[in-house]
């Protein structure tokens, strides 16, 4: 187990290193001189000397490997440089926005599970009935819904027309409702289908037949024997859909002007604010890799049938 953990951590390090090299290379191949962008954003005069001075100040006059080494040395100490747009330290900017994204993602996840677990169970229990077909249709419709359109529809119906919720921004609990629903509705179909598939498989196992033969009530068989096995993969499911969730927050934050890191990243990308983009990519890659590692470890612990090779 320890050896497995160690090898996974080494792998993670290699992957993150590759990601930083790649994003660094891409950023510096991309058109647009950061020094000029920064000067223009500051409203300063663009002359040969000011541009060259700024390039020296930002370290852009050094060879690329030297620049990368400097960036990496800063990054391990959580110093990602300053934003080209605001001049604020990038780490501060990202950390200040992180809470809002976590809040939104967590709320959406809870909502999605509240909706998809019961529906998934019902679809599995009443397999091949009208209810099951309706749930398949519902899942397909949900998976086809562009989340940005859904968000706009919800804003129009519940904020503009009915006035039940505030339209944009973050603050009270009421602000959270529409963004969380939008994000949850895009996650729920995936969860619903996976829970249904898992439970269907579980219900065909021998121990279910045994439980039925013992005379256990159908309700007990499903909830106690079937669901327990069916829910273990929900942990993996979390890992599988995390990518979807992270991608979704970027879109949903943009629609609702939710001040999270996704919105920050989109703004940074549109303004060619490279240090912010680079730190964002690294932060998300790290979060994603760690979450997947945790899921794998948890899975190994939960299910004794899975053995790991060191």
């Amino acid at each position, binding site marked *: 187990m320890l050896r497995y953990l160690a090898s996974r951590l080494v792998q993670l390090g290699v*992957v993150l290193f*590759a*990601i930083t090299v790649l*994003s660094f290379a*891409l*950023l510096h*191949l*991309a*058109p*647009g001189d950061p020094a000029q962008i920064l000067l223009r954003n500051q409203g300063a005069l663009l002359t040969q000397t000011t541009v060259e001075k700024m390039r020296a100040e930002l370290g852009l006059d050094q060879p690329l490997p030297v620049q990368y080494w400097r960036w990496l040395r800063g990054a391990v100490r959580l110093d990602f440089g300053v934003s080209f747009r605001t001049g604020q330290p990038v780490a501060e900017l990202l950390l200040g926005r992180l809470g809002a994204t976590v809040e939104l993602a967590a709320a959406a996840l809870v909502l999605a599970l509240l909706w998809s677990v019961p529906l998934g169970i019902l679809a599995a229990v009443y397999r091949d009935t009208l209810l099951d077909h309706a749930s*398949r*249709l519902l899942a*397909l*419709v949900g*998976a*086809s*819904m*562009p*989340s*940005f*359109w859904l968000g*706009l*529809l919800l*804003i*129009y119906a519940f904020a*503009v027309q009915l006035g039940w919720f505030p339209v944009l921004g973050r603050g009270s609990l009421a602000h959270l409702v529409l963004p969380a629903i939008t994000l949850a509705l895009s996650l729920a179909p995936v969860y619903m289908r996976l829970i*249904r*598939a*898992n439970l*269907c*498989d579980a219900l065909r196992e021998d121990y279910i037949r045994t439980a039925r033969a013992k005379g256990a009530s159908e309700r007990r068989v499903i909830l106690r024997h079937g669901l327990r096995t069916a829910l273990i993969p929900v942990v993996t499911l979390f890992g599988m859909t*995390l*990518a*979807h969730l*992270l*991608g979704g927050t*970027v*879109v949903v934050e*943009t*629609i609702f002007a939710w001040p999270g890191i996704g919105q920050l*990243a*989109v703004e*940074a*990308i*549109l303004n*060619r604010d*490279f240090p912010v*983009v680079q730190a*964002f*990519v690294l932060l*998300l*890659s790290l979060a*994603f*890799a760690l979450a*997947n590692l945790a899921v794998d470890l948890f899975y190994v612990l939960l299910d004794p049938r899975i053995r790991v090779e060191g």
Partner: protein
Amino acid sequence: MWRRLRRDRLAWVGLLLLGGIGAAALFAPWLTDRDPLETDFLRRFEPPSREHPLGTDQLGRDLLARLLYGARYTLGAGLAALVLILTVGTAVGLGAGLVGGRVDAFLMRIVDVLLAFPGLILALAIVGMLGPSLGNVLIGIAAVSWASYARVVRGLVLSLREREFVEAARALGAPRLWVARRHILPHVLPTVVVLASLDLGNLLLAISALSFLGVGAQAPTPEWGRMLNDARAFLWQAPHLMLFPGLALFLVVLACNFLGDGLRDLLDPHLRQGS
């Protein structure tokens, strides 16, 4: 096989819908005589009327014409991305499977890395670095999506390599590339194409999501995601501007998913009987 597809009503609905929208995109000039780019500042934000069946937008452009011509961008971008992904994925998968050894290990490492990260965000970052445009969106999306196809193709190649007809060809002294092109590729392609078509709906969603975020198609291109982004600012005064492009996108993706769901059942009968 066809008999089963014929029974799947949802798949048929999908096929008809997709065909209809594709035809509308192709024959857009016959379906409307309006120019999707022609502005009319005296007639902005008009609700649907006889003259403008879906109303006009913030610059007085005809919304129906924009939707019809926009279908070309949306569907065209989806198909172009599909071709790009298939080409790269198949080439890498063939290379890895046929050459083997270190090359294989190296390529599959890259695949692992790509599969391990949130695709939309990586694509967003790549487009952000390359600069906003619909072409760069295709590059960004293709750059992160080819990996799963490469893995499937490699798996197929590895199993095909051991089959008698491939061994026979090699025993006869056929050059490697010839074997790959004549004996392996024809067996790999159909599976991969079907797999890719299952993905078309998600691909369309990803492309228009990036356009919606502002890094894809730029004004005045009538791409649907871009139109939704523009419509956001006018939600109060002209909700029809976000209603119709969104509905169009939803229907196209739904059609793809209906069709894909039917195809998936066909490919894997176990799924249908089993879970």
